[in-house]
């Protein structure tokens, strides 16, 4: 058994967050892959969220009415194997990336 944290994936079109409309599962429920687990509303649409895995719902990280930002945990599942599931593309790090360092001017 392993835990799988399902984070709110990149919603595209520059959208930064989504509101939980309702959950269709409760903590403790067993779910199948692609089973609809809830509804999320973005500024543009309300969408059904399919489960990214088969397993047991350990934790729902947000309640109906809560705003979840892209990359934040949405649901934690207990799964048989922590294999790669289809969980959408989560931006690895929203913080800026830099490799270049500057040398300040002398004068």
């Amino acid at each position: 058994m392993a835990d799988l944290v399902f984070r709110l994936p990149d919603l595209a079109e520059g959208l930064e967050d989504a509101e939980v409309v309702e959950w269709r599962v409760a903590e403790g429920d067993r779910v199948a892959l692609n089973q609809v687990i809830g509804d999320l509303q973005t500024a543009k649409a309300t969408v059904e969220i399919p489960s990214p895995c088969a397993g047991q719902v350990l934790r729902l990280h947000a309640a109906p009415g809560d705003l979840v930002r892209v990359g934040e945990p949405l649901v934690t599942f207990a799964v048989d194997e922590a294999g790669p599931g289809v969980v959408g593309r989560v931006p690895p790090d929203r913080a800026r990336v830099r490799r270049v360092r500057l040398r300040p001017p002398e004068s």
Partner: protein
Amino acid sequence: MPELSMVQALNAALRHCLREDPRTLVFGEDVGRLGGVFRVTDGLQSEFGQARVFDTPLAESGIMGIAIGLAMAGWRPVPEIQFDGFSFPALDQVLTNLAKYRGRSRGAYDMAVALRLPSFGGIGGPEHHSESPETLYAHTAGLKVVAPSRPQDAFDLLVRAVEDPDPVVFLEPKSRYWAREEVSLTPSPAGGARVARAGEHATLVAWGGMVQRCLEVAEAAEEDGVSLEVVDLRWLAPLDEETLVASVARTGRAVVVHEAPRTAGFGAEVSARLMERCFGSLRAPVLRVTGWDVPYPAASAEHEYIPSVDRVLLAVQRVLDA
């Protein structure tokens, strides 16, 4: 003051204009019943009715033709073209009539059109949804061109664009649509360019979505002891040369950042003006960090196309070393 996203600030600006001036009309594809694909016109049709906020057919040239005719009849049309790339079918109307009617009629007709144009990339859009058309419009005499970078400016500048008797192309940076800040809903006469961050070693010049990128660069540079000034041009036409020149005359170094391709992009105009006005105080050539000279790439590659923090930092190093 309420904290608003840029989308909400634009919505508030349109609501203000519809309320204050009965000549204001809002129309375009899906702006009425749906409230706009980005929600900018959300709720306006139900508040102001279908005669003042209405849907049009999918025909951009027609949308502009309607706007021009209404403006000649004394209305203040605020048409929306849904995406930058869809503004090209309307170019004939824009270049041939919108930009010219005030002059052609020797001022007899106002051309009080504020053309709202969701613009630029960075949101993973498909083809035709991520173009940077500012140079086309800034090069067309008779048009004013403005691009806000933050919610407060979006509100102030849109109100001003709608009230302007000249045609204004209003470029909305889609990548900043969901950025939030506290917004005063009392319109203030937003001037020309603004210094978005004060600094001393070099000036970064940008507009629209790239202002935020330059602010990120300035923060990164500060960690290395380099102090960068960021000038947000806001208006590309007319260009506020004085704010620009005052900054670069002091820092002696400038890097212009835009998403549009480099060749004949608006950065070339900024660079030329700085050369003309600041030649004696420049300590390095004015550099440009831009999109590449290729058609806008697929969403999976756009992070390689849009100027990154690192690409701007490399240019900063070059002007510091010159």
